[in-house]
């Protein structure tokens, strides 16, 4: 799982700012730059009325980050999804960036966002692979069982098809990491799903192998997938170790406690991983042991 997709249970009451602190007080008469702390009403207004992609981009992000429960949030985000276009690299904050943030935000707005599942399913087949990725993650977070068929179809060509590198970018033909993880989150452990995921265990990129192992572990509970992830905690590349940490947390694989503690990586990521072990795992090591380790990492 990408280290940038951080589990975060946001809360409406907050002493932490939604954006970098400014030294001067809010002046309602002044032009509010995107990035200053805003209210829910302001976020909705920007998304609905501003017509300015950079304002909408921030507003969409804000609604997801703050887990906004306002009844207008999901419909406005659905509309923002419709703003997608064929990618234009020359554009400033491109329209698809707004649609991507809208998809990401929808993933955080269950249960109201289940109304948007059909829209997200359509976006899952958009020509823009960044949009497909965002839609896949959102559908996974929403546990949308309807997405399983499409996701399996996108992955069916395997590591050498969907998982093949593109000539002109570091990305793969399909956003495999996101698609695999969505299958794990949705939780349908059918023969078809397992059959589609399994080949990716041998993908050339360790981060993809990590995603496949995580999903197989979530769906089957078989310890060999947990062991594979633990091995990746010893990988020479930090980015791979980070991915393995996030995947172990997502799967709640408690036997990984000691390897997690010891792996060279940021404490912040270890804390996230251990939270996953506590909340999604069971058995040994016990909660007491897990929490003691978390205390030490603060």
């Amino acid at each position: 799982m990408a280290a940038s997709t951080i589990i975060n249970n946001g809360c409406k009451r907050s002493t932490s700012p939604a954006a970098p602190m400014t030294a001067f007080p809010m002046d309602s008469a002044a032009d509010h730059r995107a990035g200053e702390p805003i209210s829910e009403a302001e976020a909705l207004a920007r998304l609905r009325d501003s017509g300015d992609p950079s304002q909408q981009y921030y507003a969409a992000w804000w609604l997801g980050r703050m887990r906004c429960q306002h009844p207008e949030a999901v419909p406005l985000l659905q509309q923002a999804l419709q703003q997608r276009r064929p990618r234009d690299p020359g554009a400033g904050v491109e329209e698809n960036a707004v649609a991507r943030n809208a998809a990401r935000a929808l993933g955080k707005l269950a249960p109201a966002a289940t109304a948007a599942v059909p829209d997200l399913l359509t976006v899952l087949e958009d020509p823009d692979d960044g949009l497909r990725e965002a839609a896949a993650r959102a559908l996974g977070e929403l546990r949308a069982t309807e997405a399983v068929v499409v996701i399996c179809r996108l992955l069916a060509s395997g590591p050498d098809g969907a998982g093949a590198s593109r000539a002109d970018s570091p990305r793969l033909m399909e956003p495999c990491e996101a698609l695999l993880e969505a299958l794990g989150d949705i939780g349908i452990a059918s023969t078809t799903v397992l059959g589609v995921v399994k080949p990716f265990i041998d993908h050339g990129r360790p981060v993809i192998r990590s995603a496949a192992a995580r999903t197989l572990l979530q769906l089957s509970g078989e310890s060999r997938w947990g062991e594979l992830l633990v091995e990746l905690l010893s990988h020479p590349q930090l980015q791979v170790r980070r991915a393995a940490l996030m995947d172990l947390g997502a799967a709640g694989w408690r036997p990984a406690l000691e390897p997690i503690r010891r792996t060279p990586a940021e404490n912040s990521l270890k804390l996230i991983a251990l939270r996953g072990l506590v909340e999604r795992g069971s058995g040994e090591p016990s909660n007491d042991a897990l929490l003691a380790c978390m205390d030490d990492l603060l």
Partner: protein
Amino acid sequence: MPAPVTLDALLEALNGASSSEALVEATWALARRGDAAAAPALVDVLGYNNPGAAVAAVDGLVALGAAAVDPLLRLDPENYGARAWAVRALAGIGDVRGLEVLIDALGSDVAASVRRAAAKGLGTLELDHLAPETRQTVQLRCLNALVAAAVDGEWVVRYAVAVGLESLARTLVPGTEARQRLDAALAALCDEDDGNPPVVRLRARMALDRLVER
């Protein structure tokens, strides 16, 4: 047997480090030395924008304890990165002279990683040597800062607040007003309705259970 390395040689190695790896290595060597005279140099490393070296420097400064506090407090407040690491060092040292920095960090730093370190640190300040009245004032300020941070938007800060509150509780006499307020704050962190995720609720519950046993 090789001649012992002088402090000056270690400082030279630090100043002359020409790569990131060399800087990290030189910092660890200085940190393990345990020489208070190295404190200012270790504090300087906090501002070099090298996380690997900063981790080593924090380790060394925490080991030096009280001797590192003045150099840490004299840090340039404009260098955000250095300040963030300094919070972690002061939290680890537990010297009461770090109180203001920790309270400020918990209440206003933009980074959750800094706030969580500050929260934990506010629970473990050394208070035994203080005059009773001063001790009480400090405890109250720690308590107030932790209670205010119990509604932080980041789960890991709330988690650290539970940890800080548990540590602080052990310095408070049961039944006093302060202790009751503290227990109430932990109880609130056990509450699902306040947006506390399961791991935070579990940690707060564990704290309350352990405090009762005492």
